């Protein structure tokens, strides 16, 4: 191999490697999947705050869920008409903050968020500041001490102590001490307080049980216990919760879930729905503004680019069919344009429409050739003829109830007119045989290009990983230097091979 040939191959390999490399990097970085059918569950959660405003300045604060394992926030909105809305990040937890200078009557505020279940999503847990010591009142204090005296010698860790306390609090008959404590305290604060008294970091938290289609749900109390550098979640009745994938922690660090100033009879309820969405849509939604992606374009332009980005693949098919197989086509890249149209029309409808229109236009073209027109005028006439034929086909097929006949309108009329002209000249000059060969060759390549361009994996990769086109480019470059025989030449030159033997 010559130096020049070698450096050429190096360039191609470099292109291919960098294309694949960027694609893999982006896959790892943004999580855009290589195949398009990974589904993930998305929760739409809505907090609804109702209150009766007193006709004075009103201010509402709602604690927002902390970042947590298993979920990431896709989007959140809290804007409500008439209210100013900010998110206050100064406290231990983010709080939504609505304000209105003058509010009267019944008010409803919504806070909505979309969350994606993602088992890989992990948050480094915030360690507890310091263990608060809960002081039990009089008799309760003695009872708490006795309960702990029972369990402390039998426990080895925060978790085992918590397990025992929760079990004791729910096992009937209750011990005398536990019975007394439960009369004075709610389950969750009691468990947290007992653990605190034993010097273990624990706190009551509020969480939302996620269940599809539930409305007007309250937050529920849970206990979190700090154990081996992580918060363990305890249901005050059922004990340690291993799988918290359907629990959304809402309030962990603030004293209240929500506060209303300037209103009465306030309440907050929660509704939620879940839906499945492809992982792709999600990573698109998640992409940062600095990640340049076709998804930043308006939806309509995206649709167009989805088509355009498959073009290089179609071009590769043409190059392959020409250089490796040796199929003759009428107009080098005309088949790709036809394939592009097939993508919009569906193959069969497009094929029938194309053959009908081109066939009819060819007949009319034979009449045109007797009119002795100049080339430009003849093509222009053909454009008009083609449009008329397309119109006719669309109307007739619609009348016959064949909606797919309307798909013919996707064909680029000028391209059709030129195709007709080329085929006609080919027919006159090279004979019907050559016209048929090239026409069939064009259709064959167009159908092949269509089949490749319509593969879901091709459409997915070409649009979401534009850098993979570098690999396509490398393949085209390498094919461009292929000096071996074309498949059809093996047939063509067959008499030469036989001669010697």
């Amino acid at each position, binding site marked *: 191999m010559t130096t020049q040939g070698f450096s050429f191959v190096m360039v191609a390999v470099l292109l291919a490697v960098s294309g694949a490399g960027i694609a893999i990097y982006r896959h790892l970085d943004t999580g855009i999947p290589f195949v398009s059918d990974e589904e993930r569950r998305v929760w739409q959660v809505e907090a609804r705050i109702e209150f009766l405003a007193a006709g004075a300045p009103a201010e509402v604060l709602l604690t927002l869920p902390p970042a947590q394992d298993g979920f990431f926030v896709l989007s959140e909105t809290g804007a409500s008409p008439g209210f100013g809305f900010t998110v206050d990040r100064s406290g231990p937890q983010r709080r939504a903050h609505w304000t209105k200078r003058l509010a009267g009557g019944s008010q409803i505020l919504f806070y909505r968020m979309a969350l994606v279940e993602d088992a890989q999503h992990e948050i480094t847990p915030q360690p507890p500041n310091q263990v608060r010591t809960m002081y039990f009142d009089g008799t309760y204090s003695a009872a708490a001490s006795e309960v702990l005296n029972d369990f402390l010698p039998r426990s080895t860790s925060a978790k085992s102590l918590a397990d025992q306390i929760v079990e004791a609090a729910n096992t009937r008959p209750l011990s005398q001490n536990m019975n007394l404590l439960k009369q004075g305290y709610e389950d969750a604060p009691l468990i947290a307080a007992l653990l605190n008294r034993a010097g273990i970091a624990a706190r009551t938290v509020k969480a939302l049980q996620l269940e599809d289609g539930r409305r007007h749900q309250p937050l529920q109390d849970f206990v979190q216990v700090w154990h081996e550098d992580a918060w363990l979640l305890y249901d005050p009745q059922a004990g340690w919760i291993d799988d918290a994938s359907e629990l959304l922690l809402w309030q962990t660090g603030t004293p209240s879930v929500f506060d209303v100033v300037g209103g009465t009879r306030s309440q907050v309820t929660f509704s939620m729905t879940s839906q499945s969405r492809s992982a792709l849509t999600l990573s698109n939604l998640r992409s940062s503004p600095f990640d340049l992606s076709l998804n930043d374009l308006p939806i309509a332009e995206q649709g167009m680019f989805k088509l355009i980005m498959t073009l290089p693949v179609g071009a590769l098919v043409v190059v392959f069919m020409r250089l490796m197989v040796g199929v003759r086509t009428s107009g080098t890249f005309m088949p790709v344009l036809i394939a592009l149209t097939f993508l919009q029309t569906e193959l069969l409808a497009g094929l029938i429409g194309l053959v009908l229109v081109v066939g009819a236009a060819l007949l009319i073209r034979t009449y045109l050739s007797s009119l002795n027109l100049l080339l430009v005028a003849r093509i222009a006439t053909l454009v008009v003829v083609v449009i008329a034929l397309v119109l006719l086909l669309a109307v007739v097929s619609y009348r016959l109830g064949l909606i797919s006949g309307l798909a013919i309108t996707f064909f680029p009329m000028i391209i059709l007119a030129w195709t007709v002209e080329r085929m006609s*000249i080919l027919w006159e000059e090279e004979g019907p045989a050559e016209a048929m060969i090239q026409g069939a060759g064009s259709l064959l390549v167009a159908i092949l290009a269509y089949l490749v361009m319509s593969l879901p994996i091709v459409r997915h990769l070409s649009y979401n990983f534009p850098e993979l086109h570098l690999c396509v480019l490398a393949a085209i470059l390498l094919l461009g230097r292929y*000096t071996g025989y074309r498949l059809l030449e*093996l047939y063509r030159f067959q*008499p030469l091979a036989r001669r010697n033997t």
Partner: protein
Amino acid sequence: MNWLATPWDLRKRGVMGMNRRNVELINPYNNREAYPLVDNKLRTKRLAAKAGIPTPELIFAISQQFEIEAVPERLHELDRFVIKPSQGSGGRGILVISGRRNGRYVKSSAEEVDIQEIKRRLTNIISGLYSLGGRPDSAIIESLVVSHGMFASLSVDGVPDIRVIVFRGYPIMAMLRLGSHASDGKANLHQGAIGVGIDITTGTSIGAVRHDRMVTHHPDTGESLEDISIPNWQEVLRLASRCFDVTNLGYLGCDIVIDANAGPLLLEMNARPGLAIQIANGSGLEPRLRAVSEREAFAPTVDERVGFALQGFGGAI
């Protein structure tokens, strides 16, 4: 598989494929700037005239639509002429008029056409119907070659021509092209003309192909294609070899006709000559290309180059 050759068989026979021709011959040896010289037949004619290479006589050429109105008058005196697009390819758009009957023109296929048809053809040519990319073109009206007597029985209608492949000035392979009914008399192999391989050293026929398959007789005339001998063979090779000097195209196809009176005339040149010539000659191009490539780099004269070919490339064939 009997109907498919294996690539290694073809490689062993030195057969040149289309891809290889493009990458290893046309791209490196044919300078793009020289293409218009051969793609534009009017320029070719002028170039040849300057270099003293004989071509069929140019009667006139037109490049504007308005000039067509005067054409009937200018054709008035002429019975035998050829109309061709200056930038046409593959014999497209060529109209051969071989006589007159009842005030109408007779095509080489004996079909009659009137002056309207001729004007229409001129219009089409000028508007670029036959030129590459539809560019506006000129129409050439040149005198019809009177075919050498020995070809009369061989070809249908049109004039047979000899395609000579010239590599770096050396004529390396040749083929006689005979029109058939299927090709409308045109000497174009795509359209069904017959290609007769010619032994480059002697100017006699080797074998013949039609549509890439061997034939022994002309399908229309029934004449045997086996013992054809080209007259003035050395002169034909010299003419082809000189084409390299005026175009500087390293890989060139020269189409030469043998006029009954004027001898060998250059009809046109082709910067992308086809590969069917290998089938007609029953051998691949590569051994001859290699033999020429191994010759010293300094420019030998036309006589030296033709001599090398006549000796069979120093034993390469």
